[in-house]
């Protein structure tokens, strides 16, 4: 029997969350102190969860692999966070944010969760302001908004180009306060390497202290994973170097189903690849598409002349430019959703109109906006992004258009969760980018920050209580049990196995190889033959890795190569699952584009009759095919349509 019970509360959509909150079981303050919660990850989702749960009175242990909880990858988010405040009086509402998110996700997200997300979005802004987040303001002192892709209203709140940093510093400050108050214990430079189950319930973790290499045991009544996304499967992505899938992958192997692993977001505006030594790709925020216009030359002669430096972008006359997004999607123009913008860029470059040395780039041009608004206004909006671009590329975007190309950015897939954010392992909750969440097959810009903080500030504090309410008499768990012994033994065994390979190639060699397989076959365009080939190649690379990887140094000390090796070993398994999921989904939807399924105009063609479901994969053992379970999606409040941004 399938364990997929989404536990969507009954009642009309707008009343579900209220109804849920009104009827859950609560834990009284004296009992909260007796209940332990482990939160792995201190990005927006984890930090806000740990701080809120600590403030409620639970005993929380929080973990992150960085040297400070404030350095989680959320810090890098640039553009902004959505909320349906309707401060601009431009027609926004909870329903509209809900609708845009479902539509943006190409009708592959769960209605009830998305509605709740839209419903609590306003409170996130209130909470963040109260914590001192210096959002951008208008001269009258009110909060300012900008618009983002996939929406026709301005609902995005921002703090210059550093919105993630400021929101995270807010959550981090709340977390720091709880640490001072003694409700939260913080473990930095600790990496979770396994999940411990007792009687089928999540009751602890095994973590490696990254400084001295010690393997440590931690127990709790419940475990929350807020460990971020797995975009680094592709090696090159906009994610931080350490972003990884290890925690969720171990949980998958302990029984948590993996939801829609193939749903990956390729972001249209990133700085193009420039060399094989390259370690990561840098995002240029989507907010730039508010004022930047995307184009390539109309004529191939101009493409050639540009490549050989005989012409500069400025020299190409208006009538010889192809503003292809404005041409193809007049209603949304440069602000179409990311998947649409990325594919359109690929289409132009594949057709031979790409610019730059490699032909894999398009222009993002601010000349018109600078003329209209003045350089100062542009500087105020995007100053730090322009500076970042300038430092990397050595060109001044105030003078010449940026060159951009799509890059892997975000993973909509993740561990499957029900309405309460509980996985198929009882007592294991998943928050933020780590869950398969609310974004369906494509996430709209500025919605990840919203989701992470919604999960942490406003959802988990209720749903965890409901889970814990009947456990007030369950005493604290000891860690000297056979379950912890077994898990620790596995962790140690695997580390030793990695060290014992003593091969000839560094970890990155295999990671880069995996990345290329993924990008070529499980990237922006996918097809049956390519996916089958990818699965075969990934298996080969994995075998080679376990035969030939070389990890110098010791296990009992700081060893970055060993850390990387463990993560890449997991990516080498997850990559295969992603390809299998992509193969299984014989339709195009959102970021998942199967070349066999497209309209004559090259737009994604969904197959609602056969694929309107969440694919939740169950681990069945190493070298055994995983089993796919299906949660069918029912749309009660929204009419399912072909997405149209024309």
């Amino acid at each position, binding site marked *: 029997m399938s364990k997929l019970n989404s536990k969507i509360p009954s009642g009309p959509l707008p009343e579900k969350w209220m109804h849920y909150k009104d009827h859950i079981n609560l834990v009284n303050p004296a009992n909260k102190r007796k209940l332990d919660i482990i939160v792995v990850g201190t990005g927006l989702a984890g930090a806000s969860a740990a*701080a*809120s749960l600590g*403030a409620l009175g639970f005993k929380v242990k929080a973990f992150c692999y*960085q*040297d*400070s*909880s*404030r*350095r989680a*990858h959320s*810090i*890098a988010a640039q553009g902004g966070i959505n909320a349906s405040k309707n*401060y601009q009086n431009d027609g926004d509402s909870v329903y509209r944010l809900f609708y845009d998110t479902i539509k943006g996700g190409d009708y592959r997200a769960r209605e009830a969760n998305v509605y709740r997300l839209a419903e609590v979005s306003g*409170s996130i802004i*209130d*909470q963040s*302001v*109260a*914590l*001192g987040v*210096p959002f*951008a*303001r208008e*001269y*009258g*002192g*009110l*909060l300012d908004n900008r618009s983002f892709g996939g929406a026709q209203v301005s609902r995005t709140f921002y703090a*210059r180009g*550093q919105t993630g*940093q400021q929101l995270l*510093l807010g959550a*981090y*400050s*709340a977390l*720091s*306060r709880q640490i001072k108050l003694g409700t939260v214990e*913080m473990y930095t430079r600790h990496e979770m390497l396994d999940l411990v189950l007792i009687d089928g319930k999540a009751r602890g973790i095994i973590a490696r202290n990254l400084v001295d290499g010690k393997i440590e045991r931690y127990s709790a009544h419940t475990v929350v994973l807020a460990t971020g996304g797995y975009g680094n499967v592709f090696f090159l992505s906009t994610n*931080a*170097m350490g972003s990884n899938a290890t925690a969720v992958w171990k949980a998958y192997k302990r029984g948590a189903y993996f939801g829609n692993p193939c749903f990956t977001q390729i972001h249209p505006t990133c700085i193009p690849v420039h*060399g094989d*030594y390259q*370690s*990561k790709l840098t995002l240029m925020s989507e907010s730039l598409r508010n004022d930047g216009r995307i184009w390539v030359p109309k004529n191939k002669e101009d493409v050639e002349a540009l490549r050989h430096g005989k012409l500069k972008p400025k020299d190409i006359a208006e009538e010889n430019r192809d503003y292809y997004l404005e041409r193809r999607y007049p209603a949304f123009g440069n602000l179409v959703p990311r998947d649409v913008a990325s594919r359109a860029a690929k289409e132009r470059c594949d057709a031979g109109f790409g610019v730059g040395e490699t032909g894999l780039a398009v222009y993002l041009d601010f000349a018109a906006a600078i003329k209209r608004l003045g350089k100062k206004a542009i500087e105020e909006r995007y100053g730090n992004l322009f500076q*970042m671009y300038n430092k*990397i590329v*050595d060109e001044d975007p105030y003078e010449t258009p940026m060159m951009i190309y799509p890059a892997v950015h975000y993973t909509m897939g993740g561990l499957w969760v029900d309405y309460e954010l509980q996985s198929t392992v009882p007592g294991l909750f998943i928050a933020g980018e780590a869950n398969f969440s609310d974004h369906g097959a494509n996430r709209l810009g500025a919605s990840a920050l919203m989701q992470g903080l919604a999960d942490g*500030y*406003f959802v988990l504090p209720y749903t965890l209580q409901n889970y814990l309410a009947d456990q007030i008499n369950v005493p604290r768990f000891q860690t000297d049990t056979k379950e912890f012994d077994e898990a620790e033994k596995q962790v140690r065994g695997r580390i030793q196995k990695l060290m014992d390979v003593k091969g*000839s*190639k*560094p970890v*990155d*060699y295999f990671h880069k190889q995996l990345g290329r397989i993924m990008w070529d076959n499980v990237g922006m365009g996918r097809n049956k033959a390519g996916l089958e080939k990818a699965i075969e190649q990934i298996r080969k690379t994995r075998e080679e890795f376990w035969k030939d990887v*070389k990890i*110098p*140094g010791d296990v009992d*000390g*700081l060893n970055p*190569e060993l850390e990387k090796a463990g993560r890449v070993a997991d990516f080498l398994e997850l990559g295969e699952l992603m390809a299998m999921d992509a193969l299984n989904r014989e339709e195009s939807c959102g970021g998942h584009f199967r070349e066999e399924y497209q309209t004559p105009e090259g737009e994604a063609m969904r197959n609602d009759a056969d694929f309107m479901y969440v694919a939740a994969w169950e681990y069945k053992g190493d070298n055994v095919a995983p089993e796919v379970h299906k949660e069918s999606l029912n749309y009660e409040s929204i009419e399912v349509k072909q997405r149209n941004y024309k």
Partner: protein
Amino acid sequence: MNFTLKIWRQKNAKAKGKFVTYKINDISSNCSFLEMLDILNEQLVVKGEEPVAFDHDCREGICGTCSLYINGRPHGPDDAVTTCQLHMRKFKDGDTIVVEPWRAKPFPVIRDLICDRQAFDKIIQAGGFISVNTGGIPDANAILIPKEKADYSMDAAACIGCGACVAACKNASAMLFVAAKVSHLALLPQGKAEASERVQAMVSKMDELGFGNCTNTGACEAECPKQISITNIARMNREFLGAKLGAQKKRASGGGGF
């Protein structure tokens, strides 16, 4: 491009460290400094030597994890960037480059180029927050904040907590970091209520952790990758003095408690 690297190697916190010289050739000028170190490390691994450990994560100048002291300057020769944003085009072919960790007593070296900066977190935990719990918050637009105020606050809040200010200062003072944090909150109406407790708690934690005094050399501002201004230090000093006077008055009047 070809370079000679003199890199600080140290096995762990207790071991004695030393400089080791490496040669590295055929580096593209578009390569970032950390990518150059990646290449070096790959070569070391293949040779069976232990790679150089250095801290990094976002590689786009925002997480504040990277932290190298390059040719005598925190984050190297370019202005207003972190090490991860530094590119080899800022060096000359054939250069010798000296790479060290941050050197400051409150930031002990853990291994090679990695040091422990938890002291910064401890300062924040002492009081670098606004005391609100989750929920029950009035509407965000209920408080009007003049744009100028919000902008100044944001200028201070842009601090990435990398520790370059401490590394740059001959006294290993953390004044710029603490001042940025204090200013960010003190400039906002939400942060006013606890302003005096906050500044006192943070400053006394800073002293307790062994950071040195500020002697106004301005080295911190010059080396800050986010160009945080030392006017924040002046603001913090005013806040601090005001808080101390306030506390004295409170004591003199019997604490105002009945």
